């Protein structure tokens, strides 16, 4: 039974009077009604607020709802979200001002008591010709180790693809581990890379045993590019999201299309990773699976609704697995919530107060996180936070919080390489070179010698050949991404 937390959506307590509910609704409408606010997040949020108001504004339907909610125990929260601002005071100015907000989401459950969530995973393995040799060898070894580590109640399936896809192991409980491993051993590399059919079969296998108490996930392992069916793959991923299936991509070597794999993972809030040497396949795969198993909630999504005076500039998930979010999709899928690492999102707002703004607190937006808490019964939980700043002509000096500065410093490195690639796409190699040089300087400053050298040599390459090397582009992207600090204590 799905039951949304209407009180949370409206932002009132369950004890609120009818008058309170009406006033709160009116307030929300002034900020997020499509007539005053055209941001995608605002319309997504207002749809939900409207639904909640329809139910709660009538005493009869509110009483019905209260009874149902009480039965399902919606009153004990499992998710905690806090917000760290770069500053709380703005001067009244006509020009836009930057405000950063760091959202941190944690589990309120006692970590010691949480057992690993059961998995329903499918490994989709690329067995095209280029996987021949050590790559295939290491992928097999990694798959073997993975199967060894699965619990008996986990569900696993394996699909391989080259010119077409083949279901090696149909979805089943991980009981016959020896049999499964011998099937994986028969994999031979030959043929082209037809990712679509592999992905389709993989999703189909997970769907066969789809269970909302499980972590339903497809892990795609590839070393190549897929031709002509990228769009179809992305559509497939979007469908998978609707069904509650996540997708992660692991790219091996230098030839695969990192942007495509990123986009694919982004559709479902999953992640993508770069594996430069075949030897590290195993540790990557394990890490990915472990982070899936420590999930305390699944299928999370975030609505970011800026107030009418505010522009949502960007939003980036920094932990787990950094990912820049497509803010035109609202709610934005963020995948599973890890019990140990949690979730962190950095949002940049441009706030225009106007020089005639009245002193006092003003809203700059609202963030709503929705997730399904894994447990006995399916429970959709929603946490909302109103984001506000204070306008003051003589703001007190404030130091930005150190955790925010730390994240932003690291994030700027990732963004520099991203902008260099953007500039290069636009044919502006001078700008791309400059960005790479800045990146090198910042990397050396923070003691990242190896990455700094990579940035420097790519800057030179771009200056001379107007091209980035595949290897260097990936090294910089995933290297700067890896610098981002995890939210909580790292356990490995």
């Amino acid at each position, binding site marked *: 039974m799905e039951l949304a937390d209407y009180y949370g959506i409206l932002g009132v307590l369950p004890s609120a009077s009818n008058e309170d509910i009406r006033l709160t609704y009116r307030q929300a409408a002034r900020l997020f009604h499509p007539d005053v606010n055209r941001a995608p997040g605002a319309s997504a949020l207002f749809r939900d607020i409207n639904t909640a108001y329809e139910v709660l504004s009538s005493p009869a339907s509110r009483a019905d709802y209260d009874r149902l909610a009480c039965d399902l125990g919606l009153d004990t929260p499992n998710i905690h979200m806090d917000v760290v601002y770069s500053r709380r005071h703005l001067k009244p100015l006509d020009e*836009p*001002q930057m405000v950063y907000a760091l959202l941190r989401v944690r589990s309120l459950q006692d970590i010691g008591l949480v057992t690993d969530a059961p998995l329903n995973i499918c490994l989709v393995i690329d067995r095209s010709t280029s996987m021949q040799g050590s790559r295939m060898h290491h992928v097999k070894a990694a798959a073997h180790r993975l199967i060894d580590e699965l619990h008996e109640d986990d569900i696993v399936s394996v699909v391989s693809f080259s010119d077409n896809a083949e279901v090696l192991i149909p979805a089943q409980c991980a009981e016959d581990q020896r049999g499964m491993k011998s099937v994986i051993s028969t994999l031979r590399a030959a043929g082209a890379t037809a990712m679509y059919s592999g992905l389709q079969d993989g999703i189909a296998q997970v769907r066969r045993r789809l269970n909302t108490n499980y972590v339903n996930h497809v892990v795609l392992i590839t070393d190549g590019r897929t031709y002509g069916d990228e769009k179809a793959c992305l559509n497939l991923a979007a469908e998978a999201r609707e069904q509650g299936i996540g997708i992660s991509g692991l790219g091996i070597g230098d030839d695969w299309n990192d942007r495509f794999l990123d986009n694919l993972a982004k559709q479902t809030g999953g992640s993508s990773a770069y594996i430069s040497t075949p030897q590290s396949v195993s540790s990557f795969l394990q890490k990915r699976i472990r982070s899936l198993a420590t999930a305390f909630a699944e299928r999370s999504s975030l609505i970011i609704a800026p107030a009418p005076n505010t522009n949502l500039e960007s939003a980036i998930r920094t932990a787990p697995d950094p990912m820049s979010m497509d803010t035109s999709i609202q709610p934005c899928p963020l995948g599973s919530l890890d019990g140990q690492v949690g979730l962190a999102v950095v949002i940049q707002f441009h706030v225009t107060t106007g020089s005639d703004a009245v002193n006092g607190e003003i809203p700059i937006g609202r963030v709503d996180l929705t997730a399904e808490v894994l447990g006995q019964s399916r429970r959709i939980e929603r946490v909302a936070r109103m984001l506000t700043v204070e306008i003051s002509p003589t703001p007190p000096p404030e130091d*930005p919080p150190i955790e*925010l500065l730390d994240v932003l410093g690291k994030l700027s*490195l990732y963004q520099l390489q991203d902008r260099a690639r953007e500039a290069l796409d636009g044919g502006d190699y*001078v700008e791309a070179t400059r960005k790479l*040089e800045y990146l090198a300087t*910042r990397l050396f400053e923070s003691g990242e010698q190896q990455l700094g050298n990579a940035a420097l040599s790519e*800057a030179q390459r771009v200056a001379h050949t107007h091209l980035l090397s595949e290897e260097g582009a990936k090294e910089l992207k995933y290297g700067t991404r890896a610098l981002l600090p995890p939210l909580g204590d790292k356990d490995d």
Partner: protein
Amino acid sequence: MIECPYCHHNNMEGALVCVECGLSLWGNLQDELPTRELPDEASELSAKSGWGTATFLERNQIILHIRDASEPLTIAPGTEVLIGRRDTSSGIVPDLDLTNYGALEKGVSRVHAALRRGDDVLSLVDLDSANGTFINGQRLASNQPRLVRDGDEIRLGKLVMHIYFK
């Protein structure tokens, strides 16, 4: 507006990181100018802490590490070293021609700046260049000589170099 001390990009009020060059605007605005070092062998060579010497004697030579150039340049300066980029049409040939170091793309003027020998010192003067001359990130007012120290970063437009005394 917040001007980045490194690349002079104008950032929005409240920005904590320069969107152009990634410099943290918070710490660097607090304690004026950061000590920056060239990200190559030069930084190991100099191994300086704080300010280098300003003394530049008769026998001293200048070593210039231009960013991304493979070899440093050694210059034995006369009373003045004109820095800029060659222009065949007007016949301007500066003493130090930066054409081969990407001067055009990086916004170096034909007559950009000059290094001048004083009494045991060396100074740099901006000659009304289009994109400015900077010592350690600080822009020089045109035609006003400024003292150069060993290890300083000099930037002409977007062309960065470090100067050392030998």
